[in-house]
């Protein structure tokens, strides 16, 4: 099995910070930590951490070029422990190599920004944050590299000791979902929380308050499937693939008979009788006239949240948000059903 190993200037013995601007270098055989892997390291590639960070494109072209020449079975990067610049270089090179067909293994502390740079394309073995974890890290990385290089099937992150890559793979389970759910519930009652699916949700910090609502433009947005009567743009009642904007300039509210909800997940009788129950244009208009709100945006935005995947919803959010920002909207009232 042919292995290529990547190191930074320090671990390759070129020097410390004074050598961090070193351009990519190609060395024969294993160097430094590479000798401890117990693998057949044919070539060691090296780059200064600052050089990689400041000239990423140039460094990648050179390093990937050498990888193309060598055609190894697997690339091993680091370990880079808690070192941010080194970790970033390892994660980035590992990712690019993996996307070009060479499996890659990195080793890092889970907080290292290189874990994100790897984007789940390169495997990242969990290590300590400092070089004192070298002795434990090398055999773990080598073991995974050996199996990847042999194109063996790789098990789950917790079985194999690498960090979750954010991927899902279909598998046949011995037990039905019901049995597994009960098992999981019993574990939870015993104080051990576990999940088959890692939740990966967006965390954003709350934006600052609106400084002066009496001067601000406010937009009304909904995922309740509220559309003009007859659904002219054919918004689907479930798993919507689009959002729409409809004019409300000059309207004092959304009247039943002119607007409706095409929600496919609940009984829209109450909403259709008075669509202001979903999009409160009538009250918003009153508050605009009273000067509590500067102005109501001339359009309301709508989609159907029923069964919509989170990734699609996030895309709608970004698109609508960009439009609203461009229109100078400072506040949004979003309704969910």
């Amino acid at each position: 099995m042919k292995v290529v190993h990547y190191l930074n200037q320090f671990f390759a013995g070129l020097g410390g910070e004074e050598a961090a601007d070193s351009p990519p270098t190609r060395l024969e055989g294993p160097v430094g930590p590479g000798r401890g892997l117990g693998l057949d390291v044919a070539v060691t590639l090296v780059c200064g951490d600052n050089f990689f960070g400041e000239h990423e494109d140039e460094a990648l072209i050179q390093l990937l070029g050498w990888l193309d020449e060598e055609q190894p079975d697997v690339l091993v990067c680091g370990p880079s422990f808690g070192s941010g610049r080194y970790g970033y270089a390892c994660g980035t090179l590992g990712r690019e190599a993996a996307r070009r067909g060479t499996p890659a293994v990195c080793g890092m502390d889970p907080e290292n920004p290189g874990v994100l740079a790897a984007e789940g394309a390169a495997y990242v073995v969990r290590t300590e944050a400092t070089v004192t974890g070298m002795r434990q890290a090398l055999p773990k990385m080598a073991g995974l590299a050996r199996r990847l290089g042999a194109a063996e099937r790789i098990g789950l992150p917790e079985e194999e000791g690498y960090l979750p890559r954010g991927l899902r793979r279909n598998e046949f389970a011995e037990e039905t979902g019901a049995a597994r759910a009960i098992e999981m519930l019993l574990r939870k009652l015993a104080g051990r929380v576990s999940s088959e699916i890692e939740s990966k949700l967006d965390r954003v910090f709350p934006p600052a308050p609106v400084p002066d609502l009496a001067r601000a433009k406010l937009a009304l947005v909904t995922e309740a499937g509220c559309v003009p009567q007859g659904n002219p743009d054919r918004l689907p009642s479930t798993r919507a693939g689009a959002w729409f904007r409809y004019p409300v300039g000059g309207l004092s509210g959304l009247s039943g008979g002119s607007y409706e909800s095409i929600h496919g997940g609940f009984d829209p009788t109450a909403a259709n009788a008075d669509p202001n129950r979903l999009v409160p244009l009538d009250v918003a208009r009153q508050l605009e006239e009273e000067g509590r709100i500067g102005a109501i945006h001339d359009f309301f935005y709508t989609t159907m949240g029923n069964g919509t995947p989170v990734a699609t919803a996030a895309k709608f959010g970004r698109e609508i948000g960009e439009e609203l920002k461009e229109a100078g909207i400072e506040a949004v009232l979003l309704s969910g059903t």
Partner: protein
Amino acid sequence: MFVTALPTIAVMIGANRIVEGVAITHPFGDPAQSPAGELALRRRIVQRALEMLETDVDPNTVWQVGP
């Protein structure tokens, strides 16, 4: 600013400014009330939402609407 009758889910998905609405099928109203009563209720919900927009909040804050 998000008005929903399912604030637990809103918190789970990471929404930050959340006001609890009346019901899943009609967050901004209540067909059981008189038209005037319902309009007043809707106004209280929207006013509460506006107050929240003007307030510095911690992540995933949920406010209820008073009577």
